[in-house]
């Protein structure tokens, strides 16, 4: 082998690195399926939208619907609640976002009902801000689902949704 030396490197060094490199690529390629199999399967992904009939929800009422294994809160807000949500100064919000950026139609507030702290379900019409209160670690959300006080870092998530017509909404 010594006859193939170039600048102190031998053909054996090259083979060593090439074989090792190929081996690493092979192990990586085989490892990926074992990692990826734990991600949501196709049937789980297929269930990722749901349609809701809004005509049965009166003003001031809220419902929970099941979407992707989690509750979605749909609240038919009163005019007073909308005014309250819009009137909050941005400076009072840990995660500042205007109410108008969180709704498509002001009377319909649609939120993923999962606390952004550690995933518990907040309870409606409780807490110090007239919105939701999470019993697990004491996060208070307002009538726009924005975090006001407690350990949660973010506002309640607004899911993707479209109004199919005045009385039907598709979430997801």
């Amino acid at each position: 082998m010594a006859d193939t030396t170039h600048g102190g490197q031998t053909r054996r060094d090259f083979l060593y690195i090439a074989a090792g490199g190929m081996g690493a690529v092979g192990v990586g390629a085989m490892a990926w399926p074992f990692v990826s199999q734990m991600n949501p399967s196709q049937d789980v992904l297929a269930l990722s939208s749901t349609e809701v009939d809004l005509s049965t929800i009166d003003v001031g009422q809220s419902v929970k619907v099941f979407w992707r294994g989690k509750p979605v809160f749909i609240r038919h807000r009163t005019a007073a609640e909308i005014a309250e949500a819009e009137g909050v100064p941005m400076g009072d919000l840990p995660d500042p976002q205007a109410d108008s950026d969180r709704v498509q139609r002001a009377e319909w507030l649609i939120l993923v009902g999962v606390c952004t702290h550690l995933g518990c379900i907040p309870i409606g019409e409780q807490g110090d801000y007239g919105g939701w209160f999470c019993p697990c670690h004491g996060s208070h959300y307002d009538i726009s689902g924005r975090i006001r006080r407690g350990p949660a870092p973010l506002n309640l998530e607004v899911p993707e949704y479209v109004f199919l017509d005045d009385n039907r909404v598709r979430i997801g």
Partner: protein
Amino acid sequence: MSEFQTNSRVIKWIEYRLPIFSYVNEHLVVYPAPKNLNYAYNFGSLAGVMLVVQIVTGIVLAMHYTPHVDYAFDSVEHIMRDVNYGWLMRYMHANGASMFFIVVYIHIFRGLYYGSYKSPREVLWFLGIIILLLMMATAFMGYVLPWGQMSFWGATVITNLFSAIPLIGDSVVTWLWGGFSVDNPTLNRFFSLHYLLPFVLIGVVFLHLWALHHRKSNNPLGIDIKGPQDTIPFHPYYTVKDALGLAVFGVFFALFLFFMPNALGEPDNYIKADPLVTPAHIVPEWYFLPFYAILRSIPDKLGGVIAMFAAIFVLFVLPWLDTSRVRSATFRPIYKQMFWLFVIVCLVLGWCGAKPAEGIYIIVSRVATFLYFAFFGLLPFIGWFERPRPLPESINAAVLKSGGGGAMPEGAAAKAEERG
């Protein structure tokens, strides 16, 4: 150390091909253990026994359990009501987990008190922490399997800890769940891993024992074994001592198992999991409470998660944080007080973890969290200015001086030395 000898031709035949008999003889019979080990040194063998109890009862439970969200809860009730002795198997397994943690926590505090993490036993100590982490993962996943309300919401809260990781947090959580919430894929993988990890534990326990037997046990005096006069053979001296400890511990275990099998559990876990309703007061199992209190004491999500993990991982640097050359707290007047304060802090944290995160409990848990980390932060400085008491000349000298002649007749001691 006496060589293994036998007259049996069968044993000789096997021994020539696989030296298993001499290996057992070396490590469980003539193994030279310090002659001054006290009852604090029983908890290692008790932990080993509990691992076996958990594996045996767990394999039985898996024969009757169904890992599916629609059937899991009912199959556990089926075990409790219909399976012959199913109630015994499940209560042994559920209370056994608590017993396992009790003995392991005492075992760890024993190591802290007598400085068993110091050179040359650092790797032994690391393997112990890895065992603790594996136990925690196993216990957490096992608690999810009955699919009660606490199972479900415990799983939700704990897996959500990973959502605190910047940027990739949410993807990691989705990956852990195999969906968009804790659901059937989560239950299935937890069952698979809950069955696997105890066998991984056995492997790490073997490494732990290998490291132990390579550098030999520490002892209450924290001084090295200087010769055969400092040791006695493991069998019969410590086999019988471990057996007595096991009998006493068995009574303690039985007290819970037969008279208050649900005392350590949460009644909410007898309600089937409901993904739409979170119980008003969720708490983890008691053995996680101190860490849960640390998590909640930090008013920032990521900060709380980091503090909680740091509370365990700080143990990995303990051998270098402690700058004192004396191992045993017996000879360290300041460290000894710090140790007991640390024990109290851990108990207070556990108490805080069980209480709602409001008012006075938040203040107490913040102070206790500060003190928990202060213990580790102060250790390097204590080692510098603490003046240790004089160490005895040898284990043997200390044993004889403290009236060991009464507990260990001269003849027996001499005989042990001949054997050793």
